[in-house]
């Protein structure tokens, strides 16, 4: 035994090294989180500011969700003038942006990070983006006679972005020449009148491919008279999407697009407080659009609020159009089943909303600007409330702002009254 002491010690040392190597997972550097959340976001890019369509997005609300005060320095595309706002922790501020003829983008630099913002106008809400994308999809684009569609592409960074826009229509794939290899200079944005390029489409899909750099994209829908009808946030392709706060008294249709080479099976489920209907399935063919009318449905009560969940066997782009009638359908992009921070802002007055938790997990709500929240009509006021399980919760806020933070595999979809 004596003769092997050294060898044993060496063996134990190597074994310790092997054990550490196999069992200890090297976390990402704590100073460099792999994904951003609002607690650290340092930039806001808010495309679509204009009065081009009347009642457009011209109001900005910015909330400081960090624990310390922050300074926000913002500017519009078209002007070099910057505005500097100082935000106290857990407070927000509303600004009226100057009216611009052309659709432009508002940018804000947050010194220290931890700020969220959104543009308001015409009853619509367009949350600002804190980071750009390299691939952007949107489905359910309608350019029927009474609708306009403007694609706003904003370059959030200094690196020139080179993009190409492709439209998938009933007539096939369109690649408008002017939209190929389009260079968007650093800090600038461009507005593309899609409705002049794809005419009379009820359910078109758009893809913006970024060859270099990044972009933040929005599709702004309007009426020929110049009113803002809707904002499609678009984004990446997903297998699972959720839309919440859908009134079951009206019409709800999912318009989607399958960009892959394979057949994708799509199913939609209506979730209500006490039950859910059996999934409605259909087949989405390669490179084809699909449309699935969910509401009205014989199995769905005609009164109430529902969440609609879409599941696909492959990544798809999808948009929900719902409204009281076919002439008043408004599109909304769904929310992926993932955790994240959702910020709901309102320009004025009180806000209330509905939280739906799907897929398990929990949702924590927190009020800002001194807001007090009332959940499910309870008499108690909570500044912070965590809800778990599956189902609905209504939240009323005494102040214009509420923040909903979902953890785990749950998600929350909150909408303002009447959006």
């Amino acid at each position, binding site marked *: 035994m004596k003769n092997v002491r050294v060898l044993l*010690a060496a063996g134990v*040392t190597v074994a310790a090294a092997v054990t550490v190597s196999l069992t200890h997972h090297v976390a990402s550097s704590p100073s460099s989180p792999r994904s951003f959340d609002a607690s650290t976001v340092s930039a806001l890019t808010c495309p679509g500011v204009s009065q081009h369509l009347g009642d457009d997005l011209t109001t900005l609300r910015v909330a400081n969700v960090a624990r310390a005060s922050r300074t926000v320095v913002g500017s519009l595309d078209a002007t070099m003038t910057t505005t500097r706002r100082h935000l106290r922790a857990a407070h927000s501020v509303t600004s009226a942006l100057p009216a611009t003829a052309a659709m432009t983008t508002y940018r804000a630099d947050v010194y220290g990070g931890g700020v969220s913002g959104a543009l308001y106008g015409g009853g619509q809400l367009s949350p600002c983006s804190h980071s750009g994308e390299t691939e952007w999809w949107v489905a359910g684009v309608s350019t029927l006679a009474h609708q306009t569609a403007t694609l706003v592409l904003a370059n959030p960074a200094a690196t020139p972005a080179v993009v190409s826009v492709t439209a998938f229509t009933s007539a096939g794939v369109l690649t408008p020449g002017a939209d190929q290899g389009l260079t968007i200079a650093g800090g600038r944005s461009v507005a593309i009148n899609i409705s002049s390029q794809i005419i009379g489409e009820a359910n078109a899909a758009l893809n913006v491919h970024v060859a270099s750099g990044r972009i933040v994209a929005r599709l702004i829908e309007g009426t020929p008279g110049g009113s803002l009808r809707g904002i499609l946030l678009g984004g990446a392709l997903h297998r699972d999407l959720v839309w919440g706060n859908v009134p079951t008294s009206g019409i709800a249709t999912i318009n989607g697009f399958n960009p892959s080479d394979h057949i994708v099976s799509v199913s939609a489920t209506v979730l209500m407080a006490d039950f859910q209907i059996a999934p409605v399935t259909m087949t989405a063919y390669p490179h084809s659009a699909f449309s699935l009318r969910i509401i009205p449905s014989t199995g769905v009560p005609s009164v109430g609020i529902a969440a609609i969940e879409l599941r696909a066997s492959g990544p798809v782009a999808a948009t929900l159009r719902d409204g009281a009638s076919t002439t008043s359908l408004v599109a909304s992009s769904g929310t992926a089943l993932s955790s994240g921070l959702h910020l709901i802002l309102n320009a004025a007055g009180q806000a209330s909303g509905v939280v739906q938790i799907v897929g398990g997990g929990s949702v924590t709500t927190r009020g800002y600007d001194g807001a007090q929240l009332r959940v499910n009509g309870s008499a108690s006021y909570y500044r912070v409330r965590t809800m778990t399980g599956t189902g609905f919760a209504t939240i009323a806020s005494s102040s214009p702002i509420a923040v909903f933070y979902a953890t785990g595999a749950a998600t929350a979809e909150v909408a303002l009254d009447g959006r």
Partner: protein
Amino acid sequence: MDTRAPAVVAVVVTTGPGPGLEATIASLVAQDYENLSILVMANGDAPEVVDRVAVVAPNTFVKVQETNLGFAAACNEAASMVSGATFMVFCHDDVRLQTSCVSQMVEAAFRQNAGIVTPKIVDYDDSLILVHVGQVADRFGSVRERIELGEIDHGQQDLERDVFVAPGGVTLVRADLFAALRGFDPLIPALGEDLNFCWRAQIAGARIVVAPQAVAAHRQSLARGEREVQAATTRGRSRQDLQRRHQLWTALSCWGVRELVLTVFLWLVLDVVELVVALISRDSDRFGAIMGSWRFAWRHRQQLRTRRAEIETTRVLDDEDIRRLQVGGSSRVRRFVENLVYDGIDRAIGVLPPHEAEIDLSGDTAVGFGASFSEDESFDDVGSTRQFSLLQLFQNFRSQAVLVGAAIVVWVIGTHNLVATHLPTVGRLAPLDSWWTTWHHFFASWSPTGVGSGAPGMPGYAVLGAAGTVVFGRMGILPRTALIFAIPVGAYGIWRLLRGVLSNRARIIAAISYGLLPVCLNLISGGRLDVLSVAAILPFALRRVGAILEWEPFRGEEFVRDSHFGQRSFIHSRGGQILILVIQVAVATAMDPAALLVALLAIGAVAFSARFGVIRSGGYSPLRLAVRVTVAVALLLAPLTADTLLAGSRAASVFGQPTSSDGLSLSHVLSLADGAFGPSLWRYLMVAIAAVGVIASRGPRRSVAEVGVALYAISVLLIVLASHHLMGSFAPDVATLMTAGAVGLAMCVGAAVAALENDIRGTSFGWRQVIAAGTVVCLPLTVVGIVPALSTGRFELPLTGSPDSLASYTPSASGYRVLWIGDPRSLPIAGWSVAPGVSIATSTNSVPGGSTLFAPPLTGAMDVVLRDVADLAAGRSVVVGRDLAIAGISTIVVMNSPAPRIADLQNAPLYEVPAALMDSLAQQRDIAQVSRSGGVTIWKNTAYYGLVASIATPLSTARQLVPGQQIDGTPQNLTWGVESPLSGSTFLVPLAPSSAWSLEVKGHPLARRTVLGWVGQYERSGHSSGPATLVLHQVPLNAIFALATLLLWGVIGLGFGQVERLEVLIRARRTVRNR
């Protein structure tokens, strides 16, 4: 007619006791030649010579020379005393002539018309054994016998023939020839006077013949070493000294101009090679003899000219004719190669073995002389029954030499493209500055590292400067030399490390395996010159550690006691050995600070084995040694120590920066492969063979394996802990730790081979034999892993580095900085850590160069940039360009690999920075990506406004810019020390520390404030118009510090005998003065 035989005078030169003198005189008296006179020249004070000669030959004249000026001078003196003689016979005092010797020589002289005749010289004790039958020489004056050593005389040499040299002993010379040649050369008192005289005789057209009918016996007491050369001018000189210088003198005197040029050139080449051999074999005598020979020729150059002129007056044969009389090639080289091939390296370099090797005939079927008469029926079959055993493979010296030669050839093939092709800027291969500038960096009061620093110069510059001095300032040679020779030197170190413990075969295989390990090859492919110094030095240091600790396997000779610093014997004392160890570790640490840790690891490994291992030994406290080494190295590298102590919380980063764990899986760690040469089956075989050494070895071989496995195990553990960031900011350089592990592995491989030779052999068949067979099969397979790497001739060192193509992305105007971001293993420049796997560094005005080879742990104002990059990495900023522009950073280079990955051309390992960092960079408002290819992304800072800029509005003294505040600057082309025009009234100069700088107009400094915490802001009033100069005002404390450090090194150098030599010199001069 009276026909008397020509008069012959026999001159006998005797020196000292000359025990054979009587026999010599008696043999001359007994000669049958009728007209022979004898003259005895007694060299030096020898009063009894007269009496001794009188007893044997009363009529013989004895001339006593008061001063012994040597054989040649005595002969010349004798010749001057003699007149009328036709021939003279010059004899040593230890010869014995046969009765007819003189007459035969005279007859031969007449018959052959020879000027010089030499007899057949036989052994003094056995007349059947031939000693000389004349001699031949080559162009270098190396004399060769015409016969084999110990050749028996059967009459095979009984033919009168011409020879080139008549060897001393008994030589008949025509008196007129002797006079014409002015006798022997007095500058050659002995050992070579015969060659010199004969060569001159040949030039004069005289024939030199050997008369075999004349026989003389020669004791050769001088050649045998029975007595020393005692001539006055040769005191203190060894025989080797004298032979060499006399040979050189003769060749320089006798050759004509054309042959002289060629001969000198070849001689220099041979001497350089022999100097290298002498250095390697630590043969100081040989070294001194070679240098002494040239020194002698240079000191007597005047006499040389005179001699050459004299020879020209007697010249009859030209050089071409002389060449025909000589043998070709070099006898010296031929003798060396013969000894090397047949008798081994020791005999070749002149080391006599302590005893003759015993021939073990047990079980052997070799046939000895006696067996020739064997009655064994199988006698005739003896040779055919000789069986081959694997154990005999590479057992003898010749086969080992072939193995080593093959390894050298493989290495040459693998590195041939490193000799002349462009070295990329990867690792630490940034182009070195000139020799003078490199030294300047060590003494400088300010360095451009980071955003500028007044920290003491890094000692690595002193090491590079000293190395540059050796190569006469050709700094470009140093990186190539390190790349090509560091690993072979380390392999040689492994061979020496295992001396006395393992067989030569095992040592050679261990040394070769060291060079095959992926970590060593990755050091070359990664351009890690810093760690290559550790790879070269560590094996030598480890051996010394073992000797100091008196660990039995490495214990050398007893340490000299009672020896003090400064004495010549100090080097053989324990203190001297510790000091040498300190020097070795200090040199390696200057280049790679983690080397100190590795040295302490080595001490720990040896101490652990000595305490708990198979062979318990040790007489010196390892803790004490570790403390002494650490303190001494800290003192010798005082500037680095000061930097480290001042660095505070960053002090631990001096040993290395935390890397990302990407690409460093367990398999990489265990096979010590992190780089272009990753883990593979062939490399795992090496680990497996090392494991065999650990398991199967016994005795001292087990001790070696214990140290090796301890070193390997500790290294592996530290690598894992460091790569998993479990030691905080203490993250020793992974490559350095792997190098330590490589030494351990190589030791274990050597132990494995030794175990096959000793410990497994003879045991009954079992698992040992199975693993032995596996080891034998696997050993040659380990070479397979290196074969693909040979094709590039650069061991996968990239052809081009990222900085090489940066010029097109940097401002054309002077004055900018480049920010390098990446994993520490990717950066081509030493930097500082922001987060694990993210380090940064800056270079000014160009690609990384000699001024930024080393990054002091003290960051100073660079903290600002570190904070900016930390904010960037955490996504807390989108305007990092504005913040970096303050430091004059125009370009950001993010490196995900050490060199661009170019398909089909070069493939560098991938060490990606965190994805969040790249995301954050993509979202910055004021930096634009301009290039992304092959693992390198380049960003242009759109907010950059020049390194020195004028601004419209002076900044406040706030430490940070206000959110949204932008600096609108105009670049100014201002260089340190050069007067340049400036436009504007307020200037920003981001050179830290700001207090060290001033902006002067006509010698008057502008008003300065420090803004943003570290940037100098200068304001020009209306009175100070005109061009300005940027001036550095810094008390040269760094220079004083550096000088003190160099003085300390100098004092250390005196410790190894220089003090004693100085004392001797001073005493000698005092004595001369007093006389």
